[in-house]
């Protein structure tokens, strides 16, 4: 009984309460734990993107990107790797390794490189220092046309979102505020395709794109997904709640249907439009398979296609994939950071309706 009371209180308390009690502590612990759970994986991705290929596959993995320290030693052209060596008497010293033969390493004091001793490889530990592998970022950026991919991604995302918002809101307006022949048929057809994932009809859609001549055109990426059933559905549900009287009085004032649409309905449907905009931006920005099928020319590639090109047949260049993934996350994170309040409250208000 006590349990259910506590749980009940825990679940129903609303804001503006008096003082701290045990349920508050639990609530904050839950939130703190959740915050870690949500954020650490992303942080891990960012840190990993700064690791060298060798450090990426190392086990146990280090949290921060470490690299073996190298020391320049007189008499050797290349810097030599630095190790902590445990001598037979148990004392330790930092030494450079000149070469390794089998299980014996030839090592020397960096200050006195002529004096070479032989050390079993199990008696030495590499000296590591924190270092960021910026080359994971700079090398692909030099080799690949990152800016081109970025521009294509932005064009696709922005154009697709604008078109999606425009045509879906127009359709939703008609379907929610007009009585016309065929309306119910259209509604049923749209709703019946709500749940079918686009990935199961890839081949027929590609055929249509081919016959339209949009292969290797950004239009082939932008247009097919623009009329999303989810968008029409979402917007229509929202517009149904707008009072008809507003529209009626505007008509009496002589406003055209188009004017009613853009001056009254659209501004009032802003929260729902915001949700659809977010949906569309996320989806277009992250879409990979469809652009890859439609676009085979690299000057038209989007970021997702470009970054996945580091996945070969027999080898995946993870260090590049991770670094480029972080880069593609950046723009969307920045947009989110600026619009965070609006996005979250926007979704929230739509959900209510």
């Amino acid at each position, binding site marked *: 009984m006590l349990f259910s009371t506590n749980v009940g209180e825990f679940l129903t308390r609303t804001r503006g309460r008096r003082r701290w009690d045990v349920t508050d502590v639990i609530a904050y612990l839950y939130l703190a734990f959740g915050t870690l759970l949500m954020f650490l994986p992303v942080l891990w*991705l960012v840190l990993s993107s700064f690791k060298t290929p060798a450090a990426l*596959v190392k086990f146990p993995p280090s949290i921060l990107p470490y690299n073996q320290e190298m020391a320049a030693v007189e008499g050797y052209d290349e810097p030599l790797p630095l190790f902590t060596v445990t001598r037979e008497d148990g004392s330790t010293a930092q030494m450079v390794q000149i070469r390794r033969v089998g299980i014996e390493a030839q090592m020397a004091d960096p200050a006195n490189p002529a004096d070479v001793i032989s050390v079993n490889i199990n008696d030495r530990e590499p000296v590591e220092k924190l270092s960021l592998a910026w080359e994971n970022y700079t090398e692909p950026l030099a080799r690949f046309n990152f800016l081109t991919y970025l521009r294509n991604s932005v064009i696709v995302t922005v154009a697709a979102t604008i078109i999606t918002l425009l045509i879906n809101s127009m359709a939703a307006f*008609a379907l929610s505020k007009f009585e016309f022949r065929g309306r119910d048929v259209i509604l049923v057809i*749209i709703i019946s395709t709500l749940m079918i994932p686009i990935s199961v009809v890839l081949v027929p859609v590609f055929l249509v794109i081919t016959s339209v001549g949009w292969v290797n055109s950004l239009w082939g990426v932008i247009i097919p997904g623009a009329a999303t059933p989810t968008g029409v559905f979402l917007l229509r549900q929202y517009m149904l709640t707008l009072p008809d009287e507003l529209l009626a009085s505007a008509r009496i004032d002589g406003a055209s249907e188009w004017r009613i649409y853009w001056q009254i309905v659209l501004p009032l449907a802003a929260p729902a439009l915001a949700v659809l905009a977010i949906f569309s931006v996320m989806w277009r920005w992250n879409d990979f398979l469809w652009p890859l099928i439609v676009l085979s020319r690299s000057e038209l590639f989007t970021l997702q296609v470009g970054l996945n090109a580091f996945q070969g047949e027999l080898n995946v260049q993870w260090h590049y994939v991770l670094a480029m993934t972080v880069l593609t996350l950046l723009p969307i994170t920045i947009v*989110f950071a600026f619009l965070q309040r609006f996005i979250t409250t926007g979704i929230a208000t739509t*959900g209510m309706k």
Partner: protein
Amino acid sequence: MTQKSGSYSSPRRSVGEMIRAFFYEIYAFIMNLADVVLTPLQRVIGSRNMAYFFVLPNLLIFGIFVLFPMLLNFRYAMTSGTGLFLSDRPFVGFANYRALLNCTNFFDPNTCVEDRFWRAIWNTVFFVGFQVLGMVIFALVTALILNRGIRGRGFFRSVYFYPVLLSPVVVALIWKWILQRDGLINAVLISLDQERVNFLLNADWTKFWVIFVSIWAQMGFYMLILLAGLQSIPADIYEASAIDGASPWQDFRGITLPLLMPTLFVVLVLALIRAVQVFDQVYVLTNGGPGTATFYMVQYIYNTGFSGQPQRFGLAAAASVLLGLTLLIFTLIQLWLGRSSEAV
């Protein structure tokens, strides 16, 4: 509209308002320009018929790029061969459907001709059941907690929402690096002198993690919707029930849950749609493994029609038609339920 023009004409404006006003001006200019054409159009066809003008662009794109391909799929499902164009594909009637539905015992995939299809079906049923349940529970609990007088609610709200922004592929990549044999969790376990756990090697663990990761990635979205639903419940209802001496648990059962029902229903529908369509995230995280433990419907269709060699479009199309019909029935049931509870 009145709000907009009102803020525009107010004497002192912030920079943000000026930017807004600027964009609104452009927007209004273009829309007015369109009206030059559309007002005569309305005069010609009548204001009622303007509805057709409004639905037309959407309907065209929808018809050509969504509906027409789906209809084509019906046709593909009745052909075989490897040709891409229908004219190159021999007609085989219902052979593909027969192959898919040829089972001695539908509950034992090993007795089916297309055993993977049935493994995928039962796996999907399992996944959808537990994922939707888990999603709703976690989203609800988090929303309830955030609905308390929590400091920094905006911060937590953003943090929980952030994973929603990540692409499914990125989500899967991150978690793969955390869960694999040499991953982050095992590194922590070993540093604590614990036994290593091979999460991605064990069918039960993998099923769990696939569900966990998808909840991790999408929960924030549903949490926000539920939070809004909670905040729309008037506080005075609780005050009244407090005067009646109701326990908090009674409050939850008697007030919160019933009033939240419509919102909960929306969340349920959306979560269900996403769960049935599960694909890319699992494809990258486990690729259906170990064995076929996390092999789901959409991946079956994708593998059969796309990544297999030779690509079996006919069989994949038949499977997608079956999937589509099942989903259609589900959608209609849901809408019917939703209508009867006035939720949607």
